[in-house]
């Protein structure tokens, strides 16, 4: 059995710019995240109405995963696709918004539809629901993008035979400050980019 793993593709969303495998996909300068992500939705014709109910973290992760996964032919079953994401700010952006909605005693409106998103791994749930990925998943919290941690965790899923392919990466959002860097890891070597900790680190750092 071929035990080598490869990066089939990667997508980055940061600074109002989207890149797929290092190539520009979409840019919109001088807009806030909400305007930017809406423009991206239209430009890329996501056609997924649930998108508008999502919190910012989920919109960011969903958009990056859509652009990446459209470019990839997944040849394993959804039950063999795992998702391992990491970020620094958990769901803090939505936690703050939820707190805002209940802090005023005269204008008190705790919304269950906002409350749902006060968990960081809901972004994984949204991606899994869209693509029917039912393999193992995890959301790791670390202060910065830690390539080694992502690599080790992902490798252990493959070694344990838990996944045939895995969507991994960084999806972080807090108060309009955001960054998404997703990678799709598979056993197919059509793109011939080996899955190595150093490789995802250099792809991540190569952003100007």
């Amino acid at each position, binding site marked *: 059995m071929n035990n080598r793993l490869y990066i089939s593709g990667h997508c980055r969303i940061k600074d109002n710019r989207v890149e797929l495998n290092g190539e520009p996909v979409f840019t919109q300068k001088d807009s806030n995240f909400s305007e930017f992500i809406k423009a991206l939705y239209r430009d890329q014709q996501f056609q997924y109405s649930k998108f508008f109910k999502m919190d910012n973290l989920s919109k960011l992760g969903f958009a990056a995963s859509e652009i990446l996964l459209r470019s990839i032919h997944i040849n394993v079953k*959804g*039950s063999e696709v795992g*998702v391992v994401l990491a970020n620094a700010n958990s769901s803090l952006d939505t936690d703050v918004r939820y707190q805002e909605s209940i802090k005023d005693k005269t204008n008190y409106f705790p919304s269950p539809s906002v409350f*749902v*998103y006060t*968990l960081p*791994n*809901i972004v*994984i*749930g*949204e991606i*899994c*629901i869209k*693509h*029917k*990925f*039912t*393999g*193992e*998943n995890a959301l790791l919290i670390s202060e910065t993008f830690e390539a080694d941690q992502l690599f*080790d965790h992902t490798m*252990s899923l493959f*070694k*344990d*035979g*838990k996944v045939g392919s895995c969507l991994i990466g960084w999806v972080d959002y807090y108060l309009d400050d955001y960054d998404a860097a997703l990678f799709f890891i598979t056993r197919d070597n059509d793109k011939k980019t080996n899955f190595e900790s150093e490789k995802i680190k250099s792809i991540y750092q190569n952003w100007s």
Partner: protein
Amino acid sequence: MSTKVLVTGLGVISSIGKNVQDTLKSIRELKSGVGQIDLLITRHRGDLPVGEIKQTDEELKETAGVSSLKALTRPTVLGMLAAREAVEDAGLIGDTEGTGFISANTVGGMGHTEQYCLDYINKEKEGDFLEYLGTHNCGDSTERIADYLNIKDYVTTINTACSSSANAIMLGARLIKNGIVKRVVAGGTDSLTRFTLNGFNTLMILAKEQCRPFDENRMGLNLGEGAGFIVLEAEEAANERGARVYSELKGYANTCDAYHQTASSPEGYGAASAMKKAIEHAGLKVEDIDYVNLHGTATQMNDLSEGNAIQNVFGDKVPDVSSTKGFTGHTLGAAGGIEAVFSNLSISENILFPNLNFTDQMNELNFSPLKVIKENAEVINVLSNSFGFGGNNTALLFSKV
């Protein structure tokens, strides 16, 4: 990489017992820990039954020998007691080199936060209560328990709601298989708080009577509190020191329902897939399973979803199954750890646990859980199910060695 992961120590505290022996005694006497609220300060006293441990924080601290330590939350002290028992049981007190500690926890220091939150933001107020400010996050209890046991090599916290401590055990097994540590103390701890009680009450899934898992007339769950930890050890390390072995953690699996952000799918797709994958991971067949310790919370949705999943996996040959939530209540982040201890006791004591308060089989299902306790049972392979909000499903498979 291919080392076997063995279970060499057990520790538990819950409303049915302050240690493993106590717990077994209560189970054999069919004594439930679910009853009226005596300690938790809440308007629901006398209204909602819970599985409460009838010792105050101070009493628990005294038992753990930590009365002089500051800012210890209830989950921290419960965790100290259960984790220490597991380490003692494994004969590893004072020998924690190359050991990891993975603890699951969902409520963190909420018990003190809800008591002091108004004082925290009142600039006029000062006092000892400020020591609890740093205890709110879930990781605090993990760090304190690891310090208590002098574990330094790998310490982390997991929160995936009700599947948390099963996932802690799964991560522990992986750390051993990948040679990162040779032993891991893994499980979880949670205590009752008003936050949890009120939160679950607004979800309208709390029963006003003793919970009745898998019963046609089930009325919801009872919350509980406690901690459960097991010592996982690489086969070589256990053999080298001649450790007593409870079981091998032969298989495990975590799956996602991909159905809804919070609700689990009625047909139990993710639950079935977790069980199937754990059995496959262990290299076993469905008919090899002797007993399933169900998640069995006694809510309408869980039991329907899990029941359908059981039928999907086992067809018309469902093995002995039962939920032990009728004894302990649902201890949330601790449930997977406590039930991992139960599953190991099932193997070592040749005992199958009864599903308390069951009378009528569910209309949708073709099987019933065990009504009576079974002693001298031949128990080789046990599945332990833990399912979290959002369809985070984990199944652990323990096998007699």
